[in-house]
Every structure is written in structure tokens, then in C-alpha cells.
């Protein structure tokens, strides 16, 4: 993967040949991005003139509130095409149904039954195209007592159970950054789509994929359900207290590091930590070598945690995150810096793997860097083929392909359909 360029891949993409009609208008754009970045032809279907609602979502490039400058649009719509089409109008609906005949997948985040009311239910689309898959990502799923509840990312983190266990005990809970409930819905939505795609390869029949974001969030609760079921424990917020002595977040000279060297799966790293402390001449290193630090009960005690924290922070207070990271990792101790955005951009490992992509955003004239491939496939590498589309940029190509004449297009424009 090369940097600083938009490249046409020399290799095939794994999802080449799949066509996706992306009706995302609320929060499911990342699901379409995952498919598009893997080579599917994803056509974002946008409202004429105003465009997709994600275009109005902040932050904006250069803080310019313009539909071509929104950062969520810029990032979540990479590799997609864009057409404008008002599927609420009869003429628009007809064109949409023509497109459905050419598509493998419809991805949508409408409220349950909203598409049915438009006459675009899955049952109906399936009759037009029996192989069609429809992936519906909604807050609570297609049916059920909460199906029409009003929600946003924060309330979904709440009803999915993650919010209750995030943050500090002595205050109200706090969210995970960057709309992780929506992100989880999108990730499982993309997985569900591929499950259906693989099944269609065998059966020649499509189906509807029903993803509930609330339910996705319950997958992130670690062992909460099992702890409740087996030991009747109700997991609560733990703030930044160590899980066991030696596992937690600690302050150092220029920030924080996360150490995972005590208790459960981490306990096998304890002796490496003690060795490191001895070599560094840390006061209290010998204390940490005593047998009581092998006892999980002691490791779990306030006394053990406090003692460890005193020893570690005294050592770390004049060390940088970078020093501690290198020092610990060279001795096989799971310690990592708590990185902010700037440190992530400077991370040597990510740079070495060409993780970041940089491309020219024409409307601002800026070269913009963004996260690139989240996985490297040897035969079919991830690629940034093009940036997020301008509104309606593919109207002419796609409508011509459907056989619409220039005159017809012009009249549809006048009617506000396109």
C-alpha cells in the first residue's frame, strides 16, 4: 500500500462484483464503508439538493459547514458512489426498483416498517429480485416492544448495558468516544451481510438481515452475563481502580500508561515486571518478589493495589510513556501508552505498516490523512480507490446504465426526483 496517493489496485478486491444500494441515512454508513473498502460497488442514495443527513454532521473540515466538508461523510463514505434519488416520490420509487434488479444488497437504517409504508418492504423487493439481501440496522431490531423507541448512541449504550459499567463509581457513567453503539451496529451489520452473501452463493436466494444495535452492545459486556448467571454478581463501574495489583492505568511524566501484569491471564508477566524493576533499581522491587504477590486474594486487596501503585508511580513519575513502553515491551511486559490522536499519528508501528492513507480533498485543497486498511489480505489488498463522493456525482453514469435518456433525466430533475 502506498501513501500519499489514491491508487487503482493492481490486485482484485475480494468483494468485486457485489452491488450495494446504500440507503443509510442515520448511523449505518460504516457498514457500507466496510463493504466498499473491500471492493463492493456501494451506491449511496441521497436526497436531492440536501444530500444524506450525515453530510450535516460535525465536525467539518476547516470548520466549514458545507455538505462536501463534513468529516463523518468524508470518512464513512470512502469508496462509495453517490446518486440523488427521492424514493418518497413515485417516479423515484420506480427508478429505485429498477436499481434493485441490478443489486445484490440493500443496506438501510430506516425506522422499522418505514420502507414498508413506502411500498418497499423486503417481501416486495425479494419478489423483484429473489437473490436480493436486505441488511436492516436499527436501534432495537425490526420488531418488539422497543422497536419504535426514540434513541441515540448514548441511550443505546445505556439500554445495551455498557453505559452502566463505564466511568467512575462516584459520578454518573460516561460514554465511549466516537459513537461506539452505532459502530457496533455497523460492524455486526457488515458481518451479517457477508453471512447472507455466502449463503446466497449456495442457495441463490437472498434474505433479510435484522441487526439490533441494543443487542450488539450486549456483546461488549465482557463476562457480565455469566457472572450474574453463575455467581449472582452484578457488575458495576470500577473507574480507574486496578483490576488486580499490577493491572491498571498509572500516571507517568507526560501522560498515562496501561499496565497488565497482575492477576488472571496477566499473572505470567509478573516476574518479568519484577526483573525489570530490579534492573532499573526501583525502590520496592524486592518487595514485589515476595510470594504474597502470587496470591490472587492479596492481588485483589486494597492493600496490594495501593502498595503496587506507590511503587510504580514513584518509578514512573519522571519517565515518559515512550521510555516505559519500550522498556516494558523489550522484556515482554504488556504495557502500553494511553495514546492521544497525535501520538497515534506518530506511532512507528502504524507508519511502518502504512496504516494511514493520505489523499487530496479537492473542495478544500487539503491533503487529508485518515485510517486505512484495518486488515491486510495477501491476495486482495484493501484499497482506497476514491474519496467520499460529491453529492450526485454518479447520477449520469448510473442513470444512463439504467437506460434513462437525457430528456427523461432533465424532467426528473425538474420534478425534484433526481
Amino acid at each position, binding site marked *: 500500500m502506498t501513501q500519499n496517493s489514491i491508487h487503482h489496485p493492481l490486485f482484485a478486491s475480494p468483494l468485486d462484483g457485489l452491488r450495494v444500494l446504500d440507503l443509510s441515512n442515520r448511523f449505518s454508513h460504516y457498514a457500507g464503508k466496510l463493504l466498499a473498502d473491500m471492493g463492493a460497488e456501494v451506491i449511496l442514495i441521497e436526497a436531492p439538493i440536501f444530500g444524506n443527513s450525515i453530510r450535516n454532521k460535525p465536525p467539518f473540515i476547516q470548520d466549514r459547514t458545507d455538505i462536501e466538508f463534513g*468529516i463523518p461523510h468524508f470518512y464513512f463514505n470512502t469508496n462509495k458512489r453517490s446518486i440523488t434519488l427521492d424514493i418518497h416520490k413515485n417516479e423515484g420509487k420506480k427508478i429505485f426498483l429498477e436499481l434493485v434488479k441490478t443489486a445484490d444488497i440493500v443496506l438501510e437504517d430506516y425506522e422499522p416498517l418505514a420502507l414498508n409504508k413506502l411500498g418497499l418492504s423486503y417481501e416486495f423487493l425479494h419478489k423483484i429480485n429473489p437473490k436480493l439481501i436486505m441488511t436492516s440496522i436499527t436501534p432495537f431490531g425490526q420488531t418488539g416492544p422497543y422497536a419504535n423507541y426514540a434513541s441515540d448512541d448514548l441511550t443505546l449504550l445505556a439500554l445495551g448495558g455498557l453505559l452502566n459499567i463505564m466511568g467512575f463509581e462516584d459520578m454518573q457513567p460516561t460514554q465511549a468516544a466516537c459513537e461506539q453503539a452505532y459502530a457496533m451496529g455497523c460492524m455486526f451489520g457488515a458481518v451479517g451481510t457477508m453471512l447472507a452473501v455466502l*449463503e446466497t452463493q449456495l442457495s441463490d436466494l437472498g434474505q433479510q438481515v435484522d441487526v439490533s444495535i441494543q443487542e450488539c452492545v450486549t456483546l461488549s*459486556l465482557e463476562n457480565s452475563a455469566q457472572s450474574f448467571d453463575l455467581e449472582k454478581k452484578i457488575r458495576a463501574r470500577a473507574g480507574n481502580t486496578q483490576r488486580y495489583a499490577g493491572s491498571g492505568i498509572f500516571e507517568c511524566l507526560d501522560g498515562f500508561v496501561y499496565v497488565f501484569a497482575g492477576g488472571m491471564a496477566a499473572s505470567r508477566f509478573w516476574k518479568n515486571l519484577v526483573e525489570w524493576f530490579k534492573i532499573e533499581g526501583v525502590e520496592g522491587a524486592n518487595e514485589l518478589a515476595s510470594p504474597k504477590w502470587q496470591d490472587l486474594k492479596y492481588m485483589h486487596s486494597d492493600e496490594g493495589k495501593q502498595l503496587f501503585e506507590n511503587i510504580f508511580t514513584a518509578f514512573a513519575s519522571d519517565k515518559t510513556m515512550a521510555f516505559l513502553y519500550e522498556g516494558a515491551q523489550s522484556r515482554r511486559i504488556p504495557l502500553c501508552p494511553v495514546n492521544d490522536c497525535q501520538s497515534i499519528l506518530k506511532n512507528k508501528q502504524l507508519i511502518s505498516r502504512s496504516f494511514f492513507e493520505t489523499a487530496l480533498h479537492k473542495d478544500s485543497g487539503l491533503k*487529508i490523512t485518515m485510517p486505512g486498511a484495518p486488515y491486510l489480505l495477501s491476495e*486482495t489488498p484493501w484499497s482506497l480507490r476514491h474519496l467520499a463522493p460529491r453529492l450526485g456525482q454518479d447520477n449520469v453514469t448510473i442513470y444512463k446504465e439504467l437506460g434513462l435518456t437525457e430528456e427523461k433525466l432533465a424532467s426528473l430533475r425538474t420534478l425534484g426526483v433526481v
Partner: protein
Amino acid sequence: MNMKKHSKGPLSGLRVADFTWIGAGSYTTKILSDFGAEVIKVESSKSLDPLRNTAPFFQGKPGINRSGYFADRNSNKKSIVLDLKKEKAQEIARALISKSDVVANNFSPGTMDKLGLGYEQVSQDHKSLVYLSMSMQGSTGPHSHYVGFGLTIAALSGIQFLSGAADRPPVGTGTNYPDHVPNPCHAAFALLSAIYYQRKTGKGQFIDFSQTEPSISLIGTSLIDSIVNERIEKRMDNDNLESAPRGAYPCRDGRTIAIAIYLDQQWADLDNLLKISTKLESRDWHSNKVRMDYRKELDAAISKITIDFDAQSLQNLLQSKSIPSGVASNIAELVETDPQLNHRNHWIKLNHSEMGKTIYNAPPIRLSRTNLNMENSAPLLGEHTDEICMNLLGMSKREVQFLREQDIFI
């Protein structure tokens, strides 16, 4: 939908030689096994999956077949024990791979190669094999040998720094979040995409998966904002950049309710129900800009009102006006009383020979025509060793017995 359901999951017929363990790896292959793939977990008491010894345990008593943590991550899988330090065991593992469509592992780079099970070694005669390698930081680069787990990955990849109270140290999600959703989903998605390609072309491939990269992809908008607008990203409590009020507010019963207002009409309805503006200085509260500028004042006023309500009844009241809101449910509520999760049959009880009926997460995906495959509990350590050796690999009972005496199957 009236279309008839297949009895088998969408991945039936797909076989996975599964060398993953602990968190992210096992949750990735759970997605496959819960949807009908035959996932054969290769493990050993000589190098036990640490989750088998991780709480919670059935009846609170530790034991390698009693961990609920392990069980949830390994539903519908089979288990074969192989002491991979031994040549003969490696040979059996290679035979298993030769009969599989997929290999998955989450070891450090090089570990599988040392066992004679690396991609180059096993794909020579098996060109259609899809091979997923999920190490902490990928198989190339100066930090490829670094060690880490979910929480250290959350630190490294930015989500911890960005999450929490604005005036306190970064608190993150308090869980091994990258292990639970970002890595399993991205890995499963890459794997399924590669299988799709393999079925079309006959070509397999190697997937080099770094467990830090997907989590960074999920904070992409913050990263881009910090780059193009030269902004220092900060923790934001429960605020967002779009609207106010938005927050987590205390209730009389000690629970919390989340409320998020986006539209002026929603604000008008909320204010009408809770009489918030009467408790505030006179300002143009109908303006979202004003609400955002004075959001901390708003939050304080709302907290003083919500504390007089029980959380569930407040949620019902706000939802009656379609105001985005939800109780911050705890796990007891989710398992025992949440009507929506109950409607979707999210929690599944599966019978296990040592643990009896215990709880599992179903995947949050429902397919209209093909079933979930949530039928079998997590396997006992080595439960399917004989079955796999004889039925799949064609070994005789005597041969299996002989190898068992050589401590191959431990």
C-alpha cells in the same frame, strides 16, 4: 416473513481449524460456529486457554470445564487436545488443516511457524486455504513482537484517552472492548470476504490482522478532526458536537437515565414534561446553540428533576413523547426483565455436562431464512478428540489409543 427457514446455519459445511484462545480470537470464531460452521478448537492442557481458568465459575468453584467466561466465547465449537510441542501432534494438526477451509489463530507472529503450522507451510498443498492471523500489532513492523490484551490495546488505539470525564484521567470503557466487538467483527468480516473470493476464484489467502488497527479505524473522525483542524481532542463527558442537552442523569431508585435531545421539538416536549426552563435563568432555551453554550447549567437542572423519578417510569414518560431516552440497565435487568432482548431471545441457556444450563450471548444478527445454530454449549477440554481423529482424519481406534499413550492428546 413466510419463507421457510433452513434447518442449518448459513455457514454449514464450512470447517475451521481454530487455534485461537483468550478473548478476541475465540469471539471471532464464535461468530462462525454460532452460524453453523464446524469450528474445531485445537487446545492443550499443556498450554491451557487462560479463559478456562478465569471467573466466573459454575457454583463459584474453579475448574477447567466450569468457566462461564470461556463458555460464552466457545459455544457450538468442538475441542481436540493436541500437545503441539510434539512432532506427531503437529502432523495431526496439519492433517486437520488439510481438511479445513479456514485456519484462525491469535498468537504472536512466528508462533505457528515454529510449530510447522505457518501459512507458508500449510498452504503449499492447499491453495484454497484462508488463513487468519490475529496478532496484537500485525506480523510486520518494529512492534510486531509486542505483547498486549484488550485493555492495553484500548490504551494504544486511542479509545481510552478519548473516553471519560473531561476533568479526570482517561477511563475508557472499563472493559477489554477491542476484544469483544471491534476485533472479532473486523476479523470475521475479513474472513468471510476472503471466503467469498475463494469460492469465486479458488484462491485462498493470508490475512494479517493487527488487533490495534480496527479500534483506530473506529475513532477515525476524531483523528481526522485533530489532523485537518489542528485540534487537540479532549474527553467530552456525555456531550457531543451536535446538540444539548445530552447526558446521564440520576434517578430516585439509584439508577441512571440517558437522555439526548436533537430536535427543537424534542426539547419543547422535554421541557413541557419536566419544567426544566422554569428552574433556569431566562434565556432563549428554544435555541440549540443556547442549549449547547449553557449545557452544564442544563445538565445540573435536569439532574435535580430526574432525581424525583424512578428510572423506568421516566423512560416510559419520555418515550410517550418520542424523546430519545433509556435506562442505563445493569446486567440483572438485561437478563431478567428487558422486554426487547427477551423478544429477540438474546440470552440462550445451553446445557453443559459439567455446568448444567448456563447463559450464552446469541449473536445480535437475525437472518430471515436461515437459522442461528445456538444448540451446543462450549466443549469440555478435548471432548471431541476421538471423534475428530477417527471420523474426520480416518484414524483407527487402536491408533488413537496408541497415540494417547504417547501423551499426544493432552
